């Protein structure tokens, strides 16, 4: 573990706690890396090929910092990282945790626990269109206009919101499968129009 990661996060986030990494399992880390290298090289943070553990990890900064004229001249905002992990070994046979610094253990739950699965991940950003553009360049994500988009009110706040994601929406018959399935990624991306947001 590198404490510099924590220091960097706190420095960029005014010493406030929060989430610094959004991670995805993928089977195409090399392709994503090439896209970032070609179109957004300043966003690349780390690319590791962990042959001994049969996995590859690409970490990129999610956004550019404010300022600059176009994508290639802007500097990265180092406060938030997207992590892409590719593993050759199927999850059922894996004896290690894909996430760096963590050890795999079997989870146990009491009899009253209820499962919750990740469904979508919301980002509140300075430049919504900039983030959308980066995700389209590198991951091929496109806005899902069928869903909530445009200016919306959220309590006192007024925000602009666009939901982006991949284009391989599966249709599943079983409700439990739908709940667990994470092959469809949805990323609502918001920017505030009001002081509160």
């Amino acid at each position: 573990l590198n404490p510099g990661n924590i220091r960097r996060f706190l420095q960029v986030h005014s010493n406030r706690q929060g989430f610094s990494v959004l991670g995805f399992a993928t089977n195409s880390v090399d392709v994503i890396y090439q896209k970032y290298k070609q179109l957004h090289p300043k966003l690349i943070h780390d690319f590791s090929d962990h042959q001994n553990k049969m996995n590859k990890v690409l970490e990129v900064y999610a956004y550019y910092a404010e300022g600059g004229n176009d994508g290639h001249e802007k500097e990265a905002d180092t406060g938030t990282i997207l992590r892409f992990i590719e593993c050759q070994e199927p999850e059922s046979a894996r004896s290690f945790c894909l996430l760096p610094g963590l050890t795999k253990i079997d989870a146990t739950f009491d009899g009253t626990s209820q499962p919750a699965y990740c469904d979508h991940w919301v980002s509140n950003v300075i430049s919504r269109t900039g983030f959308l553009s980066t995700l389209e360049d590198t991951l091929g994500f496109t806005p899902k206009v069928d869903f909530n988009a445009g200016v919306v009110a959220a309590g006192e706040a007024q925000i602009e919101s666009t939901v982006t994601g991949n284009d391989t929406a599966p249709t599943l018959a079983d409700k439990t499968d739908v709940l667990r399935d994470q092959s469809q990624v949805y990323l609502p991306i918001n920017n505030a129009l009001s002081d509160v947001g």
Partner: protein
Amino acid sequence: VENLVDFVQRGNDYREIAGEGFTFLNIPRSYYGVLSEKDLMETGISMECADSIMLACFENGVAALDGAVDLSLSPEDIATILEASIPADHLGAFQANQGGILDTVLKSRYKNLHSLLKEHVSVQTYMGIVKNQILVDVQGEDLLYQIFTSNILQRNVGEEAPFFEFIQRVCSECSDENGCPLKVRPGCGGFG
């Protein structure tokens, strides 16, 4: 989650027992529905009788001043309280319309939701939604139940901090031309 009402109820119960756990954003009762004189008059009683029922509700803890009816009272509780506190000159009208009046008082707790969801949701679920302060969004034939936690990882009051949103997607159970259920589309119900 599979059932947001059960999920949040468990979270609230555990917090009450253990003194730790998620707290959720407060949603005003007016979001779900409150009792009004106009609703009571729709049962066929006069404005004066409706006024006397509202007053009896306020004075005897059936409803708060904003019209939010107590969620813990049973129909029998409310009937007993009103029967004992409505002035004699309106008691006859109350008794003649008691069924409709009690139904109106009870349903007022979720009447705004009921106007959207009709009979597709059981009374038990409606009450679970109101008691646990769950938001409901409708998109076409799909529903989204949602709730937001208070800030987590917040060092100082007033600072921006992350929070969790828990949702339950209730996808339309449409059928194809052969009557077979259509497959479920991810993201149905939207994102709130």
